[in-house]
């Protein structure tokens, strides 16, 4: 289990996830806050279904689980580009 990767972005193993679930972290958002799982470049596309399955095996069926909170942006953006867009907006006004 220590060589089985659940989150490729942040290198979180199956062992770590099972320990956390046993410790009482029983939602995607809770596990995310401890491990940063789901916060990397794939934004949870790899791990979220695997976590759902682990939680289901621990007695929390998918229908009762709260999915992770998803927020923009979907991929990384340079702050410089956001600043440029804001400047253009000001000019348009």
């Amino acid at each position, binding site marked *: *289990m220590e*060589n*089985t*990767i*659940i989150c*490729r972005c942040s*290198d979180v193993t*199956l062992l770590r996830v099972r320990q956390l679930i046993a410790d009482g972290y029983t939602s995607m958002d809770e596990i995310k806050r401890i491990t940063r799982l789901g916060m990397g470049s794939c*934004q949870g*596309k*790899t*791990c979220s*279904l*695997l976590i*759902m399955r682990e939680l289901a095996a621990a007695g929390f069926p*998918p*229908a009762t*689980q709260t*999915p992770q909170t*998803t*927020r*923009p*942006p*979907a*991929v990384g*953006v*340079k702050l410089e*580009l*956001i600043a*440029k*867009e804001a400047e253009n*907006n000001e000019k*348009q006004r």
Partner: protein
Amino acid sequence: MITCELLVIGAGPAGLCSAITAAKSGASVVVLERSPDIGGQLIKQTHMFFGSKEQHASTRGVDIAEILREEIARYDIKLMLDTTALGIYEDGMVTALYKEEEYMKFKPGAIIVATGACERFLAFPNNDLPGVCGAGAVQTLMNVYGIMPAKDVVMLGAGNIGLIVSYQLMQAGVNVKCILDAAPKIGGYLVHASKVARMGVPIKTSHTVKRAIGEDHLTAVEIVALDDKFNQIPGTEEIIPADTLCVSVGLTPLCELLAMAGCKLSYIPQLGGMVPLKTGEYETSVPNIFVAGDTSGVEEASAAMVEGHIAGLCAAKRLGHIPEDFDAQYSSLNRQLMALRSGPAGEHIRQGLASACLNKEA
């Protein structure tokens, strides 16, 4: 900020068809596509499609993409390639990124989200070794970029993607050692399974991967038989030398933009995971946000194209562009979908879609 009537996110089969039908109805359309080219997964599909004439049956996926490209050019449709939608906000604003060069904002009258699906992953020891790949990724390397992706492959998953990619790997001269599936029965169409079986590839049902083996790169795959409760049977392990393990264990809808927008989602296993609830006009729980294709339930490209036409028709109607024959078009498209989903192969889709139905009046 760019204002537009209809913003379509995704230029795969569903997105392109929705743009074409909405534009035909009179809407002006902007399409965002994160890839450098249109067509989505169609451009790597070198096999001929099933279905009926309306969905280009007996035509190769890659040729269908060309047909759609010609159609797009005839209408008021602005294509923005290399442009990734980043978010949909409460006020209906959409943000996007062009390459890594420009950050943009859009204010559309209506949105159709047609972002498709992504490959599922599996948990097994050493699953992060180089050489462990998604079957779809291998297919992209091979059919889109012309790169020989592997020498010796173990394919995990005997669904249609696993079977078709195995066949195409063999066409490219790759040695496919075996195809595994945890289920006791082959999931894909038997016509595809027979083709690879005739070429001498063993399809091992009730088998899975126990672990990937290798130091810096995959060198072998340890496989194991499963009992009828999917438990590994000790003593049945076998080590198969291979440089690539293709994981083809299904797709899951990409609906993160819908989640950001606050659309009601539900876990529906028959549709591949979390999916948006939608009305008969393909509108989500958030007004003016529509969906089409794999984003709202994993199926195949033929159904995605028909769903695209329906979403395009209905989104255009919302914007005030109602063709005289709206009812006839709408019912004809729904009849096409019913035909595609008929029979035992479509049963899980029919069940799943019934659970994803959103009744706004209720």
